[in-house]
């Protein structure tokens, strides 16, 4: 037992020493995908840890030390980290990871962004993100894009292992495809066609027409397609769009503004009119308002992990989505 522990310690030290790239991400979701892409070639850590609202993170000096020697800094982007990203980069004194340099990556590159502001943006609309809703990682399709973005950048910074990064990103993609549609459908129809049908909203009928069984998250969520939900913040819009749920209201009257009694009353009315069955919220907000509207509307309050590490079951990206899909599909 003792020998095994010593061996594992040496193995861990050796893997750190052999890592070609020191990668720091802002969120645990990005860290999980970076670990998947990088394998033993990278050392990965995240700025945000534990159950925290990723909008409200302090630029801690300890995180500047983490970034001082980093080869690659990966952020969600779309202003999610606007309160601390620049301070951390400046505080690290590491010019390699400055915005625009090869050592800095916005994982949102290439993602089809929702709610991009058109025209004038005002804080009268709350804490809006002018470049779009930043919670895109909750659409599994976007997780594939993130993985490919990371692999490309890791390969650029560490050309000797470019093919290994690409192979791992492809394997991650495949694991998401299988978790999303089931192995049988992916094998018989192909992932690209399935994602296209999913985006068009006719996945189940097309798979049925192809004579294949639909599995995975899609199968679990299919009975809830078209149903209305209420969320606390706009964190779940990408998830809802992917699985055909209609978000009819948020508990926040405007982004970043806590619920008010008047708004809660409006939400309850909307829930009655739309026959909303669940209130979906993040684990870092108070459940008081969510519980109130759920009770008054005879709905269920579902507190689901928004990120890897928010629950013990959400250990990596696929298990995060497993957990969210499990909780939501059961409640719908």
């Amino acid at each position, binding site marked *: 037992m003792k020998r095994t522990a010593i061996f594992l310690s040496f193995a861990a030290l050796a893997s750190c020493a052999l890592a070609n790239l020191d990668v720091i991400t802002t969120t645990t979701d990005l860290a999980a995908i970076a670990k998947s892409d990088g394998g033993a070639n990278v050392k990965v850590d995240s700025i945000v*840890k*534990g*159950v925290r609202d990723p909008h409200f993170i302090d630029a801690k000096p*300890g995180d500047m*030390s983490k970034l001082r020697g980093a080869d690659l800094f990966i952020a969600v982007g779309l202003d999610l980290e606007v*309160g601390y990203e620049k301070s951390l980069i400046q505080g690290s*004194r590491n010019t390699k990871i400055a915005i625009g340099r090869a050592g800095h990556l916005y994982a949102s590159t290439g993602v089809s962004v929702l709610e991009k502001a058109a025209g004038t943006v005002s804080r009268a609309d709350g804490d809006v993100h002018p470049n779009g809703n930043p919670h895109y990682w909750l659409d599994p399709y976007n997780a594939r894009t993130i993985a490919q973005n990371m692999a490309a950048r890791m390969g650029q910074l560490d050309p000797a292992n470019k093919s290994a990064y690409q192979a791992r990103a492809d394997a991650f993609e495949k694991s998401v495809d299988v978790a999303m549609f089931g192995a049988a459908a992916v094998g018989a129809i192909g992932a690209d066609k399935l994602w296209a049908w999913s985006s068009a909203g006719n996945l189940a009928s097309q798979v049925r027409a192809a004579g294949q069984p639909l599995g995975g998250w899609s199968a679990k969520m299919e009975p809830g397609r078209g149903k209305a939900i209420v969320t606390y913040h706009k964190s779940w819009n990408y998830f809802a769009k992917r699985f055909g749920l209609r978000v009819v209201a948020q508990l926040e009257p405007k982004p970043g503004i806590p619920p008010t009694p008047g708004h809660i009353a409006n939400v309850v009315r909307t829930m009655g009119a739309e026959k909303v069955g669940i209130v979906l919220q993040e684990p870092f907000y108070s459940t008081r308002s969510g519980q109130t509207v759920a009770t008054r509307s005879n709905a269920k309050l579902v507190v689901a992990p928004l990120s890897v590490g928010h629950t013990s079951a959400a250990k990596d990206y696929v298990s995060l989505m497993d957990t969210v899909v499990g909780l939501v599909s059961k409640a719908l």
Partner: protein
Amino acid sequence: MVFSTTALCAVLASAHTAPAPPVGGLGHRLAQTQNAFNPDMSLVFNFGARLSDSMVPPVRRAAMREIEWGIAADVDPYMRAEAYIAFASPLDEDEGEVEVEEAFGSYTGLAQGTDVRIGKLAGALGRINRNHVDQLDFFDYPLLVTSVLGEEGLRAPGVSWAYLFPGERFHEVTIEALVPEDGPLFSGSDTAKPLWIGHYRTFFDFTQDLSGQLGFSYGTGPMDGGTSNVYGADFVAKLRPGGTGRSVIFEAEAMWYEAAGASQRTGHFASLAYEMTKRLWAAARYDYVQLPDGSDTLRAVSGGLTLKMTEFQLVRLEWQSIDSNAGADRNQLLFQVQFLIGPHRAHKY
């Protein structure tokens, strides 16, 4: 320097009435490209009012205490420039003034781990002195800052060199050479001698929820033909249990100082701020300071509630009682409204 509010209004009005760029086409793209090089600009409005049992003229009951104009942008790949200009109307003065609080160029790419700043800087004596008034958990700075370092803290032109050591743990050393303005402890108006400041700080992530920062500082500089010295220790700890929406911030600083020709004196403060709900904070502070010239010893107790409607505005009600050995006691009720327009400001630790 007396400023004209009409001039400020004219600047703001001209910005407000500037014609909007056409949507779409070359004009729009050109405007977007041009905007990309514009600096980030923000205005922090700080309104204050006071009810006191010692209203000695020229004190005022209410004033727009400060409008801080913050401007920041990258100069080129090697330097970043920042300026914070205050249009101030302090409650204790009958005239407004324009003051450059900080304005510096910062070289971050000279060598790994270094940060060199040139310009007017907030001296690295302790932690709270480097914060601007809008970043405080209270109506005003602790007495340690206002009575020892200067009314708005120690701000002076000069050079600062900071080095962040490699490794997992945060260790940073800062060395500064400044030309101090006349203040209670240092005076640079009649000498070529600089004020030298050294500061060391380290950071602890005790757990995911609890972190702290410990710093030590030393300063030596000119004062009326002699030399003043100051030694300081600063500590801040933050407890933010994930998922609770609550947090606690404890902060304390102490300084020991010898003004030229005077014996050693001391001052300190300790404060506690508690986030009761997502919007509401309660805070309390104890201040003790011996004035550097030995003319008085002040003790103060402050307590207040702050309602942070959003990250961009707050309303604060604070009670403060100051006890003075020289008889200048004061009890006051302070009211503050603060709001910000412009880009999102950094969440500083």
